[in-house]
């Protein structure tokens, strides 16, 4: 197996998923983590 072929496969794989990787994060994740953190402080000892 050549280095070139291996590199090409890696590049194609990343390209295939690049669109997802480069998308802005949906707000739901920020909200979710904030929600989880809030759950912590209300139920935690502080």
């Amino acid at each position, binding site marked *: *197996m*050549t280095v*070139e*072929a*291996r590199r*090409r*496969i*890696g590049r*194609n*794989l*990343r*390209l*295939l*998923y690049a*669109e*997802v*990787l*480069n*998308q802005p*994060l*949906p707000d*739901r*994740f*920020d909200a*979710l*983590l904030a929600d*989880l*953190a809030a*759950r*912590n402080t209300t*139920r*935690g*000892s502080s």
Partner: protein
Amino acid sequence: MNNAMPAPVGTPQGADDEMRGLLLGAIPALRAFAFSLTYDLDRSDDLVQDTLVRAWTKADSFTRGTNLTAWLFTILRNLFYSEQRKRKREVEDADGALAGRLTSLPEQEIRVEMLEFQEALNALPFSQREALVLVGAQNFTYEEAAEICGVAVGTMKSRVSRARGRLIESLGMNGTDDIGADAFTRAALGAPPG
């Protein structure tokens, strides 16, 4: 504080601001991995959300200083497979699911190559495709990928190697000349896939 007292539900010891930041930073990679499993962005985001919740509530079982992304991938993968078993939904319904998305790629030639690549990828056994994604696209080490999938390192290595071999074979990547040219031409002439 009394150590014998069990932590209340929802207050894992490891879950804090630092963990929150780490989780946020890992989301893009998690989404890409979920997408590689599902080919469905909505379902991917649901999986990522479940993974974050699970990670947060089990944060105390994560060892600081180890690879958080690998830990998260393990969680996501387990969630995916248990959901998959419930749904009994076939994984291999993914052919062409990416085709529409690829239209945003700039060059027609790249689109064609990517479609061929995707077809070849989808033809791989699922375990090999997953191995290739983890090692080839997410840049995990063989050791990390093996841990994520719960297999021996040797198994992971051979899966990746076989996956690469099959891709090279089916895409005609012989490595000596311009390896993409044939694929481009065949696709441009409307030859039937694979």
